[in-house]
């Protein structure tokens, strides 16, 4: 037996022994995940046990080095663990932006002490991170951000405003893009900095969306003093001052990869099984076809496109494992996933007709179809709009010239 086959056998046995039955429901909704952080309260004993057992084994962040709380698995081993976990429908023991976005950037750009503090905090589920990128005047044109960060000798002084900060109200730290040089070309005056949300001068205001509920906030930074170092060899800035755009770009690739392959499509409101759902609500005609030919055609097309999309995720993952990295093609998956997700909920709204458009006395109920349908409009905007993805594909995949 090869080492990898042996590893698979071990992992399978470990999962069988350690993953509680309740955590094997394949639930991938945001509400069911273990997010961690100072304010975190486990939703069930099973969730707590699963998290603690995974933590002890380094499996909250399996591919990170052992010294930072991971299990030091190779790419192949991490893939096997993931396959075996999915084979028993187990939830991830811990799931948050620290793992999927900041972690990979710190692994690439952080000092040893930065990794020791922050990666370990993420791995142990102690610190929950939020992302301070967008500003009211810097959305798609992110590099035009204006939040000011001044060098005060022994500390940094930050003034400005961030927007669309997911879960800022329940996060512990924020990774932020700030402007440290207002005279340099816009991409060259940006710095990537790590800030404790408990710092004096930070205030947070949730944003109400058309869906009625959202994780998004506005984050105000008013004379926030940030130490230059959190310890020896542990600066608050990641990478070099004024070179934060490099770090930001690296992190955005991870974000797109995550968004492009993420779960909403496989949830209950995506384009999976639309036909069956439509038969229940619309019925069949005498010839056994859905009793609305135009709707039938739209559903068949959505299912066809969704089928091809799922295969493309599979193929690109297989290509990446064979050594041909996804690179800027992650923008294609992000575009396709977000547009398909929107189509799925649009079709469900049309299938249910006025039933789904009725909201009840307490407004749009959280988790309802209408709630999802409205919230999903954001999928093709957040993480880079569809149009920004098109710009990236044009330049980085197709090599088309700039104006």
């Amino acid at each position, binding site marked *: 037996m090869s080492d990898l086959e042996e590893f698979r056998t071990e992992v399978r046995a470990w999962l069988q022994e350690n993953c509680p039955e309740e955590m094997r429901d394949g639930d991938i909704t945001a509400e069911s995940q273990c997010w961690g952080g100072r304010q975190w309260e486990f939703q069930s004993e099973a969730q707590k046990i699963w998290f603690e057992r995974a933590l002890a084994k380094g499996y909250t962040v399996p591919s990170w080095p052992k010294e930072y709380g991971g299990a030091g698995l190779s790419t192949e081993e991490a893939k096997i663990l993931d396959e075996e976990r999915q084979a028993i429908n187990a939830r991830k023991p811990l799931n948050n932006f620290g793992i999927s976005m900041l972690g990979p950037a710190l692994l690439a750009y952080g000092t040893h002490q930065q990794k020791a503090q922050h990666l370990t905090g993420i791995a142990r589920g102690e610190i929950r991170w939020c992302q301070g990128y967008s500003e009211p005047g810097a959305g798609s044109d992110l590099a035009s951000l204006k939040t000011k960060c001044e060098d005060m000798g022994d500390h940094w002084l930050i003034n400005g405003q961030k927007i669309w900060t997911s879960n800022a109200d329940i996060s512990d730290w924020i990774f932020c893009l700030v402007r440290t040089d207002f005279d340099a070309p816009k991409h060259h005056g940006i710095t990537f900095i790590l800030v404790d949300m408990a710092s004096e001068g930070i205030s947070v205001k949730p944003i109400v969306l058309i869906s009625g509920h959202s994780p998004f906030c506005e984050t105000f930074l008013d004379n926030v003093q940030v130490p230059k170092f959190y310890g020896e060899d542990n600066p608050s800035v990641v990478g070099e001052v004024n070179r934060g755009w490099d770090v930001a770009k690296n992190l955005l690739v991870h974000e797109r990869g995550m968004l492009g392959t993420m779960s909403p499509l496989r949830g209950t409101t995506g384009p999976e099984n639309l*036909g*069956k759902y439509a038969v229940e609500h619309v019925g069949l005609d005498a010839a056994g076809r859905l009793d609305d030919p135009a709707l039938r055609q739209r559903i068949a097309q959505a299912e066809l496109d969704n089928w091809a999309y799922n295969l493309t995720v599979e193929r690109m993952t297989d290509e990446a494992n064979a050594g041909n990295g996804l690179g800027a093609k992650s923008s294609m998956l992000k575009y396709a996933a977000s547009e398909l997700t929107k189509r799925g909920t649009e079709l469900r709204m049309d299938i249910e007709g006025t039933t789904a458009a009725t909201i009840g006395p307490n407004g749009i109920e959280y988790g309802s179809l209408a709630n999802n349908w409205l919230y999903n409009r954001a999928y093709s905007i957040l993480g880079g709009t569809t149009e920004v993805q*098109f710009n990236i594909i044009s330049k980085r995949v197709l090599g088309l010239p700039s104006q």
Partner: protein
Amino acid sequence: MPLILNEEQEMLQDAANGFLAEKAPVAAFRKVRDNKPADGFCRELWAEMAEMGWAGIIVDESHGGSGFGYVGAGVLAEQMGRNLTASPFFSTSVLGATAIQHYGTQKQKDENLAAISRGERLFALAVDEGPRHNPSRITFSAKPAGNGFVLSGSKTFVADGHVADKLIIAARTSGVEGDANGITLFLVDADVPQIEREPTPMVDSRNAANINVDGLEVTGEAILGELDGGYAALEGILSAGRAVLSAEMSGSAQQVFGVTTDYLKEREQFGQKIGSFQGLQHRAAHLATEIEMMKSAVLKSLKDLDEDFDHAGITCSLAKAKTGQVAQLATKEAIQMHGGIGVTDEYDVGLYFKRVHVAQQMFGDAGFHSDRWAKNSGF
């Protein structure tokens, strides 16, 4: 199994790419088109392909084939799609070989598979009787007589029907037009007085034929597959055809898209490269994404045929639907993004546009296949 080519298949792809670029580029296709040879393809080229093992690409090695399966056939078809290569590959090596290998009797296999692999015998599949694909709408009759059958009726859009040595004809032995039951496949010699073949040149400059059969007597040995149960075999042959046609269209779409992006990088208007205009960039980015979706769909259908032939039908339909749509989009956008030069005969993109249209019509267009998907899914 990973959804990527293995090393052997990649080597086949490289070999096909090199050979076709040298021996059968688009210029060669133009020559065939302009000289209008009766065959509609170049016999010498076909002999060379057979020598390389392409004619028997899906045929088992025990019958003299190369045993590369449908992924192998798709790899070749994709490169042929890139070069617009005209050859009997599709009719003979995909349709004919699939029919005999999967549904033939031992005798039919012994008599035909080696000959197919050597490129010596050409096949054609005669299914459709009207202008739109409908494999159960069959009135072509095979009436019992003596110890065999008498065949009479007409078929249309029989690819390579004018050059085939053998015809596989879907005939009705019982039931009525529209029934899937009661169809039987017959394997007959094409060059007999009772069969009249009229070439019907198509808009893509490939040849097809109308076939009229009048009182052709055959014995029960001519039956391919089961009496009255030929629809299952027909479905299997069509599925293989749909997947390989998809691979061909995918090659055409990728080629024409590459030509188009090259043009966007070089053509200047208003003092700048037209590829710098967002109006074109975003359409190109959308199309590039769709092409990735198409490639996955094609590879999946070919792999399914190799792994579980009898259950690959729906996947092949989905692939044909997706590929038809994307290849049409790619060829339409190629013409539009090229502007005036795109509608000239001298420029190649129009040739791809025409070929993709005919390939999309063959064995069901995207509408036919999404309808089939919906029916199969119960809606």
